[in-house]
């Protein structure tokens, strides 16, 4: 009996853990869906960081990121790491479009929200709020999970 109980607990935990990954937090704003919002944990001496996410446009109209604010950084803007002749360059992406029916994936080595002048530490397992504003869809507050990945 005890064994059965343990087994139930273990399987329940597993189911919940899986559900947690499958139904990871998604945000909806207008016709946009935002998922996989995370930031890499970085050493306490780090002065900059990056936030990654996937923004999907389910609507029929093009949208654009018009502003980003977070209490974690003095400045936050979308940058793109680009390889040019073997050299990784970072460019300030001025007009980041999210085309209708498409997704903008921000991931390591590509588009990312660059956090400059960090006001706190990006500690593994913590989270912080970030507000992202779109030209058409309006703004939404996201919870950024900090992890090592």
């Amino acid at each position, binding site marked *: 009996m005890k064994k059965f109980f343990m087994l139930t607990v273990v399987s329940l935990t597993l189911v919940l853990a899986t559900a947690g990954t499958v139904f990871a937090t998604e945000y909806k704003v207008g016709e946009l869906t935002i998922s996989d919002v995370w930031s890499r944990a970085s050493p306490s001496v780090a002065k*900059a960081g990056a936030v990654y996410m996937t923004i999907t446009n389910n609507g029929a109209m093009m949208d654009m990121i018009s502003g980003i604010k977070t209490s974690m950084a003095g400045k936050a803007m979308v940058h793109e790491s680009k*390889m040019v002749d073997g050299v990784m360059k970072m460019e300030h992406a001025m007009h980041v479009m999210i085309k209708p029916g498409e997704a903008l994936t921000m991931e*390591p080595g590509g588009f990312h929200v*660059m956090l400059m002048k960090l006001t706190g530490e990006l500690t593994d397992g913590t989270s912080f709020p970030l507000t992202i504003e779109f030209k058409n869809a309006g703004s939404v507050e996201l919870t950024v999970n900090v992890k090592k990945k």
Partner: protein
Amino acid sequence: MIFRALFLVGLMTLTAYVGYKGWKMYEFNQLTSQERANILVATPIEGKYSLTDHNGQRVTEQTYSGRHTLIFFGYTWCPDVCPTLLTDIAFIMDELGEASDKVVPLFISVDPERDTVSVLKEYVGEFHPGIVGLTGSLDDVAAAAKSFRVGYGKVVMDPADPEDYSMSHSADLFLMGPDGKPVKQYRFGVDAEALVKDIQAVLTDG
């Protein structure tokens, strides 16, 4: 008329160039991670350096003689590429297990003005205790980069805030042999698991 012709020629050249670059990117993205892992840059490098490690000791490539070194250039204010690579290197070291004793990962700063010995020590140590941060004078760093044929430069993102600059830099990863000579050079974006396999193969072969 002539301007129009020139404009057209210019436009065609630009289109061709963009097309070529796009195709190259496409080709690269089609490769499997193992194929990517084996991408070597044909240009031979010397790979010599004379720098200061994060404990304040002067080091050269001879300091690590007898062990492989895994070298890349970056800076601590780097938000995206360097933390990604350092996380991969920490993963590689863990995966190598006992064999990691034969490998010293070196993170060479291209921003010695901000990356002092103490900053570097604290920075690299949080990714993995085995990683060694190297810095030096502007000339030391320039000489090391030249020897690895690594390009880098300061980029001021916001003219109103010139102190908040970022650095562009080559993100290649160099695997050097126990004799200090180059063995492999990996492009940024190679899957960390493929790197582990490739490095394991090198370590087993000699």
